[in-house]
């Protein structure tokens, strides 16, 4: 059972809706970016395994995956900081595979604080323009504009060590945007920040990205971050793109077990395929997910259910026993033992959860279509 993150589908869907509206307003002025059959190996390990990804102009794609899945390698390959063993990179329909980083016209924000310690915030933002030999007055006015965009005009004369982590990353974002890049690359820019600043800066990045309309690749291992900020999310594992889709699709219609278990929380329960595109689990017959292949009746399967698709009802004759519960604001996460090694997690409204104290005997009832139905794993 996966217990990753606490993102809820409504939040993701709302973000998607807001994102599309914002993009329409911004008019999508970015460029198309393509990674085609990209391969990168370190010895026998494939960091990128024939990875292909197309980013539409002005789109923000979040690459999501566990450590070592190849998401940062993909970003660095796009930046030209990583040499590809095979495949190609195209920006605005022009092949840039062998073009050095400095000539790709990119903006990057890194996971580590990357401001130049010897320069003030203003000088940092103006650095790219200085390299391009822009006039001093233009450099300063442009850097001033960008600092205003990220809300740091009063801190223009401060050195990096005089800024907080969040401020440093905002200056880094301003610096990346100052050179009017064709593509913005964000390599886990929020991971070093505390939760509150991270959430604020995440929204700010999205606001600025929509305002500028720049094609953006955002690499993260934080699914809440990915689902809330991106137009589309690419879930990666072992150097491959497992699924690419809008956040709601990734959450509600995972392409495989890995995506289902990696994104959000999921219950993996034993079930049996039944006739008529259905499956039996915990004594309840559920329809197969839309588009799922037909299963041979009687086949042993694993049924993946979201916690919010599990309903609990106090019942002295029920098979479940509440073992613990966590208050998460509007919902309560309730852990229920089903006998033997079997357990299930349910997300119920907080008011209902309040009545399900530890030790309460409950009836467990799955509702709606399962998230995914897979062949029974050997481990079980």
């Amino acid at each position, binding site marked *: 059972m996966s217990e990753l993150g606490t993102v809820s589908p409504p939040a993701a869907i709302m973000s998607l809706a807001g994102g599309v509206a914002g993009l329409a307003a911004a008019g999508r002025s970015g460029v198309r970016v393509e990674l085609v059959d990209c391969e990168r190996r370190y010895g026998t390990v494939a960091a990128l395994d024939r990875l292909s990804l197309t980013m539409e102009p002005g789109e923000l794609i979040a690459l999501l995956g566990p450590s070592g899945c190849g998401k940062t390698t993909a970003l660095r390959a796009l*930046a*030209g*900081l990583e040499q590809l063993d095979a495949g190609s990179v195209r920006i605005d329909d022009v092949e840039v595979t062998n073009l*050095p*980083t*400095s*000539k790709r*016209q*990119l*903006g*990057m924000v*890194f996971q*580590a*604080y*990357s*401001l*130049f*310690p*010897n*320069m*003030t915030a203003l*000088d940092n933002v103006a*650095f*790219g323009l*200085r*390299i*391009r030999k822009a006039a*001093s007055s233009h450099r*300063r006015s442009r850097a001033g504009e960008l600092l205003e965009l990220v*809300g*740091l005009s*009063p*801190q223009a*004369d*401060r*050195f*990096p*060590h*005089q*800024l*907080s982590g*969040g*401020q440093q990353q905002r200056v*880094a974002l301003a*610096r*990346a945007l100052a*050179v009017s890049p064709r593509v913005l*690359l964000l390599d886990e820019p929020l991971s070093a920040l505390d939760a509150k*600043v991270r959430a*604020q800066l995440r929204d700010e990045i999205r606001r600025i990205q929509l305002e500028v309309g720049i094609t953006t690749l955002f690499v993260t291992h934080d699914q809440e971050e990915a689902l809330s900020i991106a137009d589309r999310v690419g879930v990666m594992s072992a150097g491959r793109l497992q699924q690419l889709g809008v956040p709601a699709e990734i959450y509600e219609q995972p392409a495989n077990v890995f995506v289902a278990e990696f994104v959000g929380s999921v219950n993996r329960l034993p079930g049996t395929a039944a006739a008529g595109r259905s499956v039996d689990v915990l004594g309840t017959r559920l329809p197969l997910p839309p588009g799922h292949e037909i299963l041979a009746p009687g086949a042993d399967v694993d049924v993946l259910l979201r916690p919010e698709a599990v309903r609990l009802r106090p019942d002295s004759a029920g098979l479940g026993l509440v073992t613990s519960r966590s208050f998460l604001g509007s919902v309560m996460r309730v852990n229920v033992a089903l006998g033997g090694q079997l357990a299930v997690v349910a997300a119920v409204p907080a008011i209902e959860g309040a009545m399900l104290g530890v030790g309460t005997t409950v009836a467990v009832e799955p509702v709606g279509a399962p998230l995914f139905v897979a062949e029974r794993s050997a481990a079980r």
Partner: protein
Amino acid sequence: MAALTLTPGAAVRRRSPSASAFRFGFAPRTIILVLTGLYFLIPLAASARYALEGSGGSISFSSIDQLFHDGTLWSGLVTSLEIAAGAAVITLLLLVPTSIWINLRMPAFRRTMEGLTLLPLVVPTVVLVLGIFGAFRSFPNLIVGTPVILALEYVVLALPFSYRAIDSGVQALDLHTLVDAGKSLGSGWTQLFWRVLLPNLRTAILSAAFLTVAYSIGEFAVANLLTFNTFPTRLYEVGTEYAGEATAVSVFALVLTWGLLLVMSFVGGRKRRQHAATAALPATTELAGSVSEDLAAEVDELAGAVGLGGAGAASAPAPHDEEQGMTDDPAPDDEEN
């Protein structure tokens, strides 16, 4: 609740002022400093006293007077300073790019490099001298027989100190991120080197230069072996004839070296302090700041035209870990506006 009330109380007890101050604070530190100071100052004071001692225990400046009228001594000092400057320049030209390259591209080779740079401490000096002499034998007029050979010798002999100074500075930087950030902004290697890396290695570079200069000015054995007339060799010759003058020269040399290092240190730190002070100034000084910025930009462009680092690079402060004492932490209310 009980735990909440107990914990602060325990913390207060642990912070009992006088006990902890004595155990880890002021008193032992002062004692160590005083003892160390005495260890260095007593011989120096004794030498100064001997140099200024006249007949019958009176104070006499005759040794000092002779010192200022000894032309060969001054020419030896000039030669030593020239050689020291040359050695420092060669050291920096060789070691700064080497250390950056090794940390960036060949990190696995770092340990080996550290071991190699320690060799001058374990290989006898005479062997090194003859080895270097042999290596440059084919350049008799350019290197061998000129002070250049001595500068090259000192580069090698000061390597254990100079390489460590530079390497620790390089390691203190997040080199990969800075380089990647610079490249992503369109910077080539030359611009990265001048505008980003060198300014952030200022302290390490100054340290390496200090150490090389100090080593070169004071080195006697190699200079004597290669029959050069440097400050230490001349000092030795004077010492064999006039003990008082030799002692006066020794004291003078020490004061001179310390003064030189102090000046270099001050020059290196001045701009840094200026930057920190400017950053801390309130908005009322914005006008003055913009004027100096204009000036810096103009100097920078001029310097850029002649291929130098420019004012931005030259006036850059050292890495932030060395400046923490000069500035406050970011104010919490500045966090998110």
